[in-house]
């Protein structure tokens, strides 16, 4: 590994941190701590994007790092914190059944992700080429979280973590999407979180809790 520059090594370390945070989210019960983990994930993402931008001298990546900082580290968590306080679910404790199984499935997903990413990584020309596997692993772990958790709030955190993984994947294969497309995605994400917020209140109004176990009436009969 001696031929890797310092910046590349730091980027790879940050990528490793992203993966660790994803696992931590998978195992976290409390809504409040989950949100803090999401902020950390966003922050690591910004740091790695900034490093890539400076090593590869790409101005548009600086802009997209700034956009991520504002949106994913400041605005969205702020909205979610406010929602959490309004709904009074800060201290919500979600029972996690089968945590060991969940972790094992997570591990299998990581291996699968690396296998899947292999041919693409071999062709990518970016400094981040080895991290595509990690990006895909973050995406798959977020899926697992959305599937395994039964609280609306946790599913939303999973959704946002999925977005982070996608962003990381785009940076690691191609140095990010064109700026205009990224702006469009940011707008969609912002609107999505607003709608999620509206939904929390609708769900609570109808079901008296944000527990999705109660959302089981629409089954095939």
């Amino acid at each position, binding site marked *: 590994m001696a031929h890797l520059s310092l910046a590349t090594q730091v980027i790879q370390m940050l990528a490793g941190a992203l993966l660790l945070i994803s696992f931590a989210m998978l195992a976290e019960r409390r809504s409040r701590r989950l949100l803090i983990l999401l902020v950390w994930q966003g922050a690591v993402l910004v740091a790695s994007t900034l490093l890539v931008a400076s090593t590869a001298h790409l101005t*548009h990546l600086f802009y997209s790092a700034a956009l991520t900082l504002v949106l994913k580290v400041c605005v969205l968590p702020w909205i979610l914190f406010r929602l959490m306080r309004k709904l009074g679910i800060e201290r919500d404790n979600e029972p996690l059944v089968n945590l060991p199984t969940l972790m094992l499935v997570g591990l299998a997903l990581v291996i699968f992700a690396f296998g*899947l990413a292999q*041919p*693409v990584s071999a*062709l*990518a*020309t970016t400094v981040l080429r080895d991290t595509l596997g990690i990006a*895909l692993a973050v*995406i798959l772990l977020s*899926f697992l979280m*959305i599937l395994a958790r039964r609280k*609306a709030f946790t*599913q939303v955190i999973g*959704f946002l973590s*999925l*977005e982070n993984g*996608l962003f990381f*994947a*785009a940076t690691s*294969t*191609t*140095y990010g*999407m*064109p700026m*205009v*497309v990224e702006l*469009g*995605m940011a*707008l*969609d994400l912002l*609107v*999505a979180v607003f*709608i*999620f917020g*509206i*939904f929390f209140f*609708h*769900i609570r*109004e*109808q*079901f008296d809790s944000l527990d*999705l176990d109660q*959302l089981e*009436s*629409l089954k*095939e*009969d």
Partner: protein
Amino acid sequence: MEILLVLGCPLLGAMLLAVVGAKRYAAEASVAISLATLLAAAALVLRIIHGGSMTALHEEFFIDPFNVFLVALTALVGFTTSVFSRPYMRIEAEHGRLTPARLRLYHSMYQLFMAAMLLALTTNNMGFLWVSMEMATLSTVLLVSLYRTRASVEAAWKYFILCGVGIALALFGTALLYAAAENLLGGEGMNALLWTHLNAVKGQLEPRVMGLAFVFLLVGYGTKVGLAPLHNWLPDAHAEGPTPVSAVLSGLLLNVALYAVIRCKILADGALHSALPGHMLMGFGLLSTVLASFFLWRQRDIKRLFAYSSIEHMGIITFAFGMGGPIANFAGLLHMTMHSLTKSAIFFAAGHATQLSGTQRMDKIRGLLAIHPSVGWGLMLGGLAILGMPPFGVFTSEYLVLITAMRDHPWATPILLAALAVAFAAIFSRLQPMVFGDTDDRPLPHTPALVPVFVHLGIVLMMGVYIPPALAEWYRLAARLIAG
């Protein structure tokens, strides 16, 4: 210029109705906006007929015979649905199911949804295609939960999460597509995501990356098409939302999502030099058709029944495009049109039928012919049309799909035929008692707008008997484009 009008009318309309949507004349305003969109779309069609394919605004928009026909279809069904929703939503409001604030939300989001779909159809940028597909989801999610009942909130949440996740996969696919094209088309500019540029170099795109990209794009956009096994959101969203929303979701959104899949398939076909993308489409299509036709038996809710029928038909269309070749593509395009028109007509009739009897449960809906003959006939004829009875256009397209399957993939024909037979028995046995028989329900307070039902069915009937040569030529042109 016409493109800007096509997109601008619904977009401005959405803003306007966000302000005045609660007023008495909002429904009429919505009809007027949809009519303007339709006229703009017609102008665009004329221009393409005379001038051929074109790009506009720094190549950000691309119109060819394939998407212009979908633009026209979307604008047409968008217009007729707005005509239908005028009395329908008024009756709903009088039943106390909707407040003025929610009507405003409905009218505004309806136009935004139209704008999102038209943008998805006309854009040349694969990134914007994704953005507008996501916008289409976001604008309809609050419409599905418009009644704020338990079931509708649940359906909307399911729709949101499942489609959100699905479309995230499509975004990953788009990123891979960009990666595959970047070396060829230059990374810094915007060109590497423009479909026309991608299409020009598709033979040189790295096959392994493109293969992976196509899998993600197919599963991602396929979720929105309602392909099994990711179809779970569809029946819930169709059954719990207001009927005009069910009609446009089923008649239009599924088509637009399938359009995205086909655009990706054209690129993947060129890059992979193999039949793999086609086989994947055939597999997903066949699975959806078979699963949906068996699920039809278990339905008690009239809108759920026809939602499953939509999954079945999207499966058939996907299968047709999977087989590829000029005839199968022609059949796929024709079936897309026929399904869109017939299914929205059925939802219009079914919507009024549920208003007449006050429930969506099929065993409670009885004697439609006795109380309101035109609703009864609309439902009956629509049902017969969607089941593929001969004089209607659905028969023509299904027949073409079947004979192509017989020639190229004989093993698939009995599976398709069995699924069609099961679906026929399931739907017809439900339809018959709903339409005939006695009832003591009272007539509706407003005259229902059934002109759209019979206009749609009329077009479907005409296409079954006689496809105008100009239209057939147009389909042939589009089919050839898809075959690459």
